[in-house]
């Protein structure tokens, strides 16, 4: 079998993550496993294009990586004058064990005893298989900072004894929330300023979670939410890189395949939590309302508003209330929405609260108040692109 460069790279990367997950279990060390898998991946990329892809790429990578790990352990043991511990042969593990290894890796990378920054970097490096240089570029860190963060995280896992284990059933929902939050953070980090590699990586991680836990509403809802947002990627910036508001996006350029997949996932996620809908699934349902509307004025605002009501019951926050008020403005007018927005507390530092007030005041013909709210939005950190749009609108 021969593969073109991209497909080969993808195959090696996907299988590399699985092999890494198994090797961390076998060696008990993320660092050692990473080094060994890296070595095997380099060899694969050297030899496969020449000799063809082996029949069982994963087994090839695993044998090669394990051999390297054994060498390293022997060398270090010799230096310390100790006997090297035996390392089991994991070559014949059934698929269920491979799946569990991947889950162990997921839950270890997103362990709540690691800082969120560490979880993000580690997930990109070990689950995503990105090089340290790519992790650094994705997170806008210097390579030295990213390397230090990764080293510290791996040291903590090893020294503090963070277990390589899938959480017990009673802990699973909470731990899964943590995993989803980390992936969502990676997505948002990339989504905010359209950093495609980070967005792609978050989607890939969410897909991995769904493949591992196809019945968990949290991961179904998460993937749905990411896909429905990502479906609009091509239309979110104009040709001068200024943001384009939802109302003005060219819907014919939205990715229909992603929307179909996202909508079907929302359904699956909601069916699994009829009692108390999963917050990610509810947010995805709102995104689906927008994705399915033929045009902005034809949006089903009743549906959007009821989903916000549901979201307020499962995950209340002033920001959700603000978004709900914005939907009310579209359905019932600015005069109805403005008092709702004004009544929200705790958003004085949130630029979108000021920006929403500016828009509503502008619609009501109150120019001076709208401009003052626009100034507050800028003062609290409205992104430069949106500040340009708002200035054009309200002056």
């Amino acid at each position, binding site marked *: 079998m021969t593969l073109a460069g991209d497909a080969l790279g993808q195959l090696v990367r996907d299988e590399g993550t699985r092999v890494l997950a198994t090797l961390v279990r076998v060696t008990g060390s993320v660092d050692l496993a990473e080094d060994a898998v890296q070595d095997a991946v380099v060899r694969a990329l050297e030899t496969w294009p020449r000799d063809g892809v082996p029949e069982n790429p994963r087994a090839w990578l695993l044998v090669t990586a394990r051999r390297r790990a054994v060498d390293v352990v022997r060398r270090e043991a010799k230096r310390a004058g100790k006997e090297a511990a035996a390392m089991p042969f994991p070559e014949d593990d059934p698929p269920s064990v491979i799946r569990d290894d991947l889950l162990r890796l997921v839950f270890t990378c997103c362990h709540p*005893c690691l800082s969120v920054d560490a979880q993000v970097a580690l997930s990109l490096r070990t689950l995503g298989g990105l090089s340290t240089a790519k992790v650094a570029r994705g997170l806008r860190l210097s390579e030295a900072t990213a390397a230090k963060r990764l080293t510290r995280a791996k040291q903590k896992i090893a*020294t*503090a*004894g*963070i*277990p390589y*284990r899938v959480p017990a059933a009673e802990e699973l929902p909470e731990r899964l929330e943590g995993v989803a939050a980390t992936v969502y953070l990676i997505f948002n980090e990339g989504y905010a300023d359209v950093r495609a590699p980070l967005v792609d990586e978050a989607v890939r991680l969410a897909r991995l979670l769904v493949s591992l836990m196809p019945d968990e509403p949290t991961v179904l809802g998460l993937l749905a939410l990411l896909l429905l947002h990502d479906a609009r990627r091509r239309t979110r910036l104009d040709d001068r890189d200024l943001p384009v508001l939802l109302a003005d996006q060219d819907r014919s350029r939205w990715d229909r395949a992603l929307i179909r997949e996202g909508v079907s996932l929302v359904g699956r996620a909601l069916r699994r939590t009829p009692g108390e809908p999963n917050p990610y699934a509810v947010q995805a349902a709102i995104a689906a309302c927008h994705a399915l509307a033929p045009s902005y004025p034809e949006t089903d605002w009743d549906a959007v508003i009821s989903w916000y009501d549901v979201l307020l019951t499962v995950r209340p926050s002033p920001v959700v209330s603000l978004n709900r008020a914005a939907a009310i403005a579209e359905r019932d007018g600015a005069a109805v929405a403005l008092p709702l927005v004004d009544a929200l507390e705790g958003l004085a530092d949130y630029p979108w609260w000021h920006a929403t007030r500016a828009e509503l005041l502008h619609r009501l013909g109150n120019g001076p108040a709208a401009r003052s709210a626009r100034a507050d939005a800028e003062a609290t950190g409205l992104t430069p692109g949106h500040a340009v749009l708002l200035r054009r609108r309200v002056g």
Partner: protein
Amino acid sequence: MPTYAALIYSADVDPTQPEAATMMKDYNEFGAAAAAVIRGGRALYPTATATTVRVRGGKGGDIVTSDGPYAETKEALTGFYLIECGDLDEAVKVAAQIPAAWDGAVEVRPVVDFS
């Protein structure tokens, strides 16, 4: 199995005084419940009894002492346990039973094994 230090940060009180009786009862209950993993531990007198020692000018230089700990904070180091647990998850579960966990904070740190 790894050993962890559970460092207790809480209100700076004297555990030998009658006012601390309720707190001491809670600690005794914890000690009994976690006896299987506790490998040692001590309560400390308040920071008012502490002396901070520094040597100026490198080893063998002038000994400089000052009253109390260096910085004044609401929570002080008031004691510690050594616990032996299979992994950090277990250690966190044990630490969460220490009364300071809901009345201050408990810092869990792995102990170096030099053997």
